[in-house]
């Protein structure tokens, strides 16, 4: 095995034992990136120089015995996190030349933990999409079949992990943007509870839904990253000052006696039979570990997509107003007056999907429509959360497929936004309710595409997610495969 194929915990052991150096890891990674990147396009910007310098510093630190949890570990960042002095585009032309003057809190936290950054990964423009096809910088491809999409919006991060172009990555999840690409690329992806990980420096799409989380090769790595990034941030008002446990403590615990809810609304018509079969098999695995499963209902599931496509675009229409060509980013070279400058800069700077959502959101917030759309959606959102609260009164965990189907082909849904929106139907509810969720691999389709299994837990129960995901991972006896590139 090459060093870049290993997990964080495996590399930690090697680094500590002196069996590998950070420089060797980074070298192996960039060799891999050179080989596959032109076919996959996981990254928008590479930070090769920073990574090599970081590796040298890490090796010096290790020699001195100054070892932090992520010392010498190369991590990729979705291009939605502000990185001081490093271009941050959010996949958009309007920020194609934007260099932030500050670091996002998570970036600072990873740096303090010793991480090395490999680059900024590709994404749907402003995280609006489920396929990483709306990026101004071109589409990212699925390493299991480059004719297919990797999911989105954090497709670049998922692919970088799946194709061993980094050891772990950070993504952001507004409606499934971590869990869905994790499922379609065969890696672990977690969306923590809203308020668990600081959003400061995460370029906002929909502020009440956005949450940051890791992509990793296994559940233990997920716990390691979460240990580094979770916690209260005084720079964010919606950050929650709750204690953060050591998530690694949950990895070896069993799930005997747990009650697992299986919501009937998540095994809907249109779900791929191979996906359903893989998930049914997973249910047997957790039952074999001493958990009881029971059928539960989340009756407002049918409203999730509608509520999401009012709330998220409404917030986005306001969040994206700052991209006006005045202070930073793209400005039209020719304009007649101020209004013309706004119109041209924004018309040329934003892609079609972003403009569609800005218009949807602007409409939903308009005078005379607010009550019927935004206000009503917010009320239904509260009911959706109640559905989950109800189920979590009797269940430890909810188990569902992560996506209705394995990865679809590039271009297959770009002309049909509604079909595209439906690919998030199983993940959106967790964002609306603010609860944590994790997607772990649960097998492959007949054509060799990864399938994802989703666990959902109540607020701030990330530990429980680690516990069941780890137990499942160890006992599922899944075939170990790597994408052929």
């Amino acid at each position, binding site marked *: 095995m090459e060093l870049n194929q290993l997990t964080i915990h495996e590399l930690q052991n090697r680094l500590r034992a002196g069996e590998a150096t950070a420089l060797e890891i980074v070298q192996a990674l960039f060799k891999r990136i050179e080989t596959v990147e032109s076919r996959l396009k996981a990254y928008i910007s590479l930070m090769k120089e920073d990574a090599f310098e970081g590796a040298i510093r890490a090796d010096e630190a290790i020699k001195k015995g100054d070892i932090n949890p992520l010392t010498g570990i190369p991590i990729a960042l979705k291009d939605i996190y502000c990185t001081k002095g490093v271009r*941050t585009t959010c996949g958009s032309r309007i920020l194609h030349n934007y260099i932030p003057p500050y670091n*996002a809190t998570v970036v600072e936290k990873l740096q303090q933990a010793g991480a090395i950054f490999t680059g900024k990964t590709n994404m749907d423009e402003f995280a609006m999409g489920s396929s990483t096809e709306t990026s101004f910088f071109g589409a990212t491809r699925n390493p299991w079949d480059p004719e297919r999409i990797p999911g989105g919006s954090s497709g670049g991060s998922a692919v970088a992990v799946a194709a061993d172009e980094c050891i772990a990555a950070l993504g952001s999840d507004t409606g499934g943007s971590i869990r869905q690409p994790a499922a379609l690329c065969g890696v672990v992806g977690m969306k923590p509870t809203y308020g668990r990980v600081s959003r400061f420096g995460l370029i906002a799409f929909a502020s009440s839904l956005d949450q940051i989380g890791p992509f990793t090769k296994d559940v233990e790595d997920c716990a390691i990253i979460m240990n580094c990034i979770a916690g209260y941030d005084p720079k964010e*008002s919606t950050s929650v000052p709750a204690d953060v446990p050591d998530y690694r403590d949950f990895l070896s615990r069993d799930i005997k006696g747990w009650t697992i809810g299986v919501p009937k609304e998540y095994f809907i018509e249109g779900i791929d039979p191979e996906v359903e079969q893989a998930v049914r098999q997973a249910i047997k695995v957790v039952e074999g570990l001493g958990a009881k499963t029971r059928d539960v209902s989340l009756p407002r599931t049918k409203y999730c997509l509608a509520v999401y496509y009012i709330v998220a675009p409404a917030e986005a229409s306001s969040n994206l107003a700052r991209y*006006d060509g005045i202070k930073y980013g793209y400005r039209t070279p020719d304009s007649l007056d101020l209004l013309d400058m706004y119109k041209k800069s924004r018309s040329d700077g934003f892609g079609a999907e972003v403009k569609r959502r800005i218009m949807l959101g602007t409409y939903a917030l308009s005078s005379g429509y607010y009550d019927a759309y935004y206000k009503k959606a917010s009320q239904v959102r509260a009911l959706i959360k109640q559905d989950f609260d109800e189920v979590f009164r009797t269940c430890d965990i909810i188990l569902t497929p992560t996506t209705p189907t394995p990865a679809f082909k590039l271009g297959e849904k770009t002309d049909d936004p509604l079909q595209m929106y439906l690919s998030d139907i199983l993940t959106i509810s967790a964002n609306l309710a603010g609860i944590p969720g994790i997607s772990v691999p649960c097998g492959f389709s007949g054509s060799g595409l990864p399938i994802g299994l989703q666990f959902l837990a109540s607020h701030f129960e990330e530990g429980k997610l680690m516990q069941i995901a780890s137990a499942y991972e160890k006992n599922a006896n899944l075939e170990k495969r790597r994408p052929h590139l």
Partner: protein
Amino acid sequence: MKYEAVIGLEVHAQLLTDTKIFCNCSTKFGAAPNSHTCPICLGMPGVLPVLNKKVVEYAIKMGLATHCRINAQCSFARKNYFYPDLPKGYQISQYAEPLAEFGHVDIEINGEKKAIGITRIHMEEDAGKLLHDEHNPVSYVDLNRTGVPLIEIVSEPDMRSAEEAAAYLKRLHEILVYLEICDGNMEEGSFRCDANISLRPWGETAFGIRTELKNMNSFRNVQRALEYEIKRQQYILDDGGEVVQETRLWEDGQGVTHSMRSKEEAHDYRYFPDPDLVPIDIGRDWVDEVEKNLPELPLAKRERFMGEYQISAYDAGVLTVSRALADYFEEVAKRSGKPKIAANWVMGDILKFLNEEKKDIKDCPITPSALADLIGLIDKGTISGKMAKDVVEQMYQTGKAPTAIIEEKGMVQITDESTLSKIISEVIEANPEQVAQYRSGKEKVFGFFVGQIMKATQGKANPKIINDLLKKMLTKS
């Protein structure tokens, strides 16, 4: 036809916090453009606001001072519109859940009292400023002011004349300054006012069509603009026309209002709750704590001064114009034990000196205790009131204690009766003609003698003793 004006005011007051409402940048006025900025107030991608608690405290103060209900929970909303001085493309304000509601402010015009309702008081952030190049078609943006905390105080449409509006505005200004939460500087924009005004036929209860007036940066301009607008609307209505609902700008130089934008061009602000900020719970304890530390407000102070110090309503009004002046007067009154005399000195000489130099009472070189000492010296007869006038001027110029000045200048009053009798005899002897006039009943010449005696003593003679002695001596011989 006879019309009644219906006026409501929206006042924006900048709060005197050290830092901005959602970041740690300084709020100081007058710095180099964009030097008081950070990624947060610049609206950089990814930044988030964190509320400055001091802003809430100051807003609660104003709410309590205007008899508002302080809501147990309030929240922030986004007001969305595009303008280059608004870096996020929205202003963080309050909409559905303001901090305070249902208050009132009492005004008085020609002895008639009236309560003007306060609809709401809410917190929000200020926008930046545009600087237009006079020679080139270029504009610059200065974002120092962006994020400076404001409270907006919205009145009920309770005012019926420009005069009432001006009185209300002055009262609000006075309260804000008394609370020390706003410097009240209208020229620098720390205190700004927009007005809504409509006319209706006398006796009608429904509102007419209103216009909104902006760009009035002094009390006088608010009154002038409203007076102009009343006449303008009256003219339109008398002519059988209809007032257009629009925003109009006051043009100070021309003394008129100009249309700025019509109702159709009005923004749809698309208010919605700001998802980056959590609702603020304002517990009873917090409100009680703020209330406990609230200073005495101008109106209450005025009434107390009238009762406690037996001074006139007019004097009480002058002396409570600012908290510092009221404190100054009160200390002089207490230390001297002569409140009425203290009031005369403060309102007379002290304010005259300060006004001449355009100084604030806080910069007065005469301390309240020095002024009280001076009053005591007059009372004891050490110096005459006339001498005191000179002493106080010296005190103002040198900052010295009155006793020191009196000693230096040898200004101690002559009260010794034998000394004075001698001087009086000399004056009487030297002016037999006037003595004869006096004795024949022409009492007016009495003043002449007093003048002569004062001249002889360089003004140091005790006037009361002179009065008595002179009268006796003139009639006696």
